[in-house]
């Protein structure tokens, strides 16, 4: 395999910096004053509920949408005045956006030939990248004649072939079925490691973001809520939005009263919390069933293969817990449990 093509990829990767980006559609403000710094070579995810503006932010980085204020830098270069073609980005669209009338080969070479590269050189590059992405069998076919997974790879190839400084992906796997999505995720991560390009990945699926990213930004209600590694985000969410958005099954939210170091209706390991009523979030997996200081009635069981989701009624609130062994439990019976300290987040203090 000729080594010339991607040997310099590592060196090419450029960081991306967003400074005070604000975007409005008419009177509606999508987000305001967004600052982000993405390091060279990093796989960075932008995750948030649908409608939170992820696509809009990605399109602003690409130059497909113009921000109302703020600046975009790629590397050290401000790119606000440049069109999408001049920013040297590669982009994979949600529906792949392959040219239906062109063959796979023509799709992949189009970013090169349109810049005036000689056809033979473009074909050579395309064959190489197609080989590396495992689509060399499909080169003469049209996008309509290949599978969704293959279309996906063609879109990756078309975006990668021009050695982009930044690689942008907008929910690229949402059209794949669950099985394929799983392998596509792994595939993307491998490709990203191999090619070393700075990658910004947009998804509404928090578990997907956590599983593939070096770092994640949570976006919601017009702001960046938190930026950090998946571990940091999961273990210490910065606010209620992030805490409730991350995790599957979702965080249990309830009110507890703390006085003199102990809490009701559930006894939580809340070291050093003053007296008062608090809104707390409890990760389902941090409820350890079987023994402990607490007792609650099991109201329902949801079998999920590897584990079972057990619904408990605690002080009138329905709480989800994850159990790996449900022997001896039954609907309507009491279950003893304890709570791991790592999975409890104080969200706010009542009346504060």
């Amino acid at each position, binding site marked *: 395999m000729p080594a010339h093509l991607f040997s310099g990829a590592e060196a090419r990767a450029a960081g991306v910096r967003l400074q005070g980006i604000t975007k409005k559609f008419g009177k509606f403000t999508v987000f305001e004053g967004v600052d982000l710094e993405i390091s060279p070579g990093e796989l960075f995810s932008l995750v948030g509920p649908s409608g939170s503006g992820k696509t809009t932010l990605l399109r602003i980085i690409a130059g497909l949408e113009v921000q109302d204020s703020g600046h975009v830098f790629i590397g050290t270069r401000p790119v606000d005045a440049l069109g999408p073609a001049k920013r040297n980005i590669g*982009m994979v669209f949600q529906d*792949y*956006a*392959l*040219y*239906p009338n062109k063959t796979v080969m023509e799709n992949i070479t189009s970013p090169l030939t*349109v810049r*005036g590269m000689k056809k033979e050189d473009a074909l050579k590059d395309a064959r190489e990248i197609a080989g590396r992405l495992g689509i060399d069998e499909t080169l003469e076919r049209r996008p309509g004649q290949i599978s969704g997974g293959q279309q996906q790879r063609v879109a990756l190839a*078309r975006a990668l072939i021009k050695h982009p400084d930044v690689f942008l992906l907008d929910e690229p796997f949402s059209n794949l079925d669950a099985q394929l999505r799983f392998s596509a995720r792994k595939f993307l991560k491998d490709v990203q490691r191999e090619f070393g390009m700075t990658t910004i990945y947009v998804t509404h699926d928090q578990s997907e973001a956590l599983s593939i990213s070096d770092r994640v930004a949570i976006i919601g209600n017009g702001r960046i809520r938190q930026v950090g590694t998946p571990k940091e985000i999961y273990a210490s969410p910065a606010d209620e939005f992030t805490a409730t958005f991350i995790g599957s099954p979702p965080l249990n939210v309830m009110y507890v009263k703390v006085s003199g170091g102990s809490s009701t209706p559930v006894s939580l390991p809340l070291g050093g919390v003053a007296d008062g009523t608090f809104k707390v979030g409890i990760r389902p997996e941090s409820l350890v069933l079987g023994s402990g200081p607490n007792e609650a009635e099991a109201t329902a069981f949801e079998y999920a293969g590897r584990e079972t989701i057990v619904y408990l009624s605690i002080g009138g609130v329905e709480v989800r817990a994850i159990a790996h062994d449900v022997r001896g439990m039954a609907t309507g019976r009491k279950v003893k449990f304890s709570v791991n300290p790592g999975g409890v987040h104080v969200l706010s203090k009542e009346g504060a």
Partner: protein
Amino acid sequence: MSVSLSAPSSNLSSYVSLFAQTDFGRVVYNTVFFAVGTAVVSVLVGAAFAILVDSRRRAKRAISLIAYLPYMIPFTASALIWATLFNPGYGPLDPILTSLGLPAINWLGPALQLYSLTMVGVWTSIPLAFLIILAGLSSVPKQVKEAASVDGMEMWDYYSSVALPLAKGAVITAFLMVMILGFGNFDLPYILSGAGGVPPVTMATMVVYAYAEMFYANLAPQGLAAAIFVALLASIPGLLLVRTTLGASKDGRGRTWLPRLRVPRVHLPGSRRAFNAPFRYILYLVCSLVSVFILFPVYWMGLIAFRPQSLDYLLPPIIYPTKIITGVFLQTVAQASPEIITTFFVSCAVTAVTILLAAPAAYIIARERKRALLGIMIYVFSLPSIVFVYGIFSMMVGLRMLNTWTALILTEPLFTVPFVVWTMTNFYSSLPRQYEEAALVDGYSRIRSFISIVMPLARPGLIAAGMVAFIFSWHLLLFPLVLSQTPFSFTFPPVGSNTVTTFAILFDPDSTGGTISNNVWTQLASSGIILAIPVIILSIVAQGYLLKGLYSGGVKG
């Protein structure tokens, strides 16, 4: 009144005598030149405007409105206005040409009149080509367009290698539709050749020739033979249109026996990059020039309708506004009021009949996939109305219904129904089936589900289809002309089935049966505006529907 009803001869003698006519070859040539020339030029110009609108972020609406403008002026009014523009000596085109250092042209003289006719044909057809091609270009998915800009494609790259190849079906549809309407066009050649008698052979098309044979020369068999001949000519694009439309429809199934129009892939020469810069300039230049071409006649119509008659036949002609009067316009409205009333009620009735017939038919076609029926509708639409006119005329004579509203109401749906069925089929196909399925599960009968579930969902489509039927009916010329026997028994004030179109071409306060050459421009333009006003109002409202209905699908990933 001296029309004898000779039955069409059952042998080939009328065809023989038709082909024996020395002028026949010339008439065929005129017909083909007009239809094909109009189609080629209006598709090129329509595509230029469609690309311009599709590529721009701003001023889309304003540019669209220019390209759409001639669509709001019925053929009859367009032809009347162009006839004054072409007026030798007194028309406004000569001073424009001479000020540019060009010689004046005898537009309607024997040497040039076919080209002038084709030019007017182009003027009236640009909007249709524009609308269909724009619909094709806009159906390219937004993400594909963005991918092209990320890849670094510029205007020429994108349109030549992505958008136009994807919109190929739309371009073909536009070309065929304009050609079909060109073959069948009666209004333009009839009016531009003087609106009466036997047209000069240098510009007569088959349709006008057939009309003259049937209703002036008293040679109905020859006329019918000519009508069938032009119908055969129009069948070529007609059948291709059937094939294209059925081939492009959503479910994409169902091979038909019709041949498919294959357009070879064109590989453009050398480096495409070299085309990007000049392409934009050429596009802007072409569209600017064509905009002037489109706007001037409309400006002229407004100008001459609202100025004193004394300013009309002057040397040199006055082409800028000086004095504005509204008296003649209002007086013309008053004089045309019987025809306005006739046309209004007839068009309303035709609209009702059309919807009653077309809505269920289109629904059945859409849901039961009766593709052959849709093909027949499109084919009937493509037949020139001249083939039906003599039979209908004879029938109305037999029924003693000549010169009545009923005659118009019974016959006009022949044009409106096929077109509305076609567009409504597209509309129904785009409605999700799940509501009807839910209704069937809930125990509704098919008919009840159609009436209480489908009809309310389809209301926007039905309203727009009704508007289209109204517009069609409002500006028909040939049928009212024939069914009111206007050429033979002109009475004023008009009675029976005279409509605004026949009023416009025959109105002459000084004489009866006058032609446009001795008409008063102020009144002529006023009647043109009367003709145009309802169409302007309705076509603005129905514009979105037309876009959607005429060309749907065709671009798929």
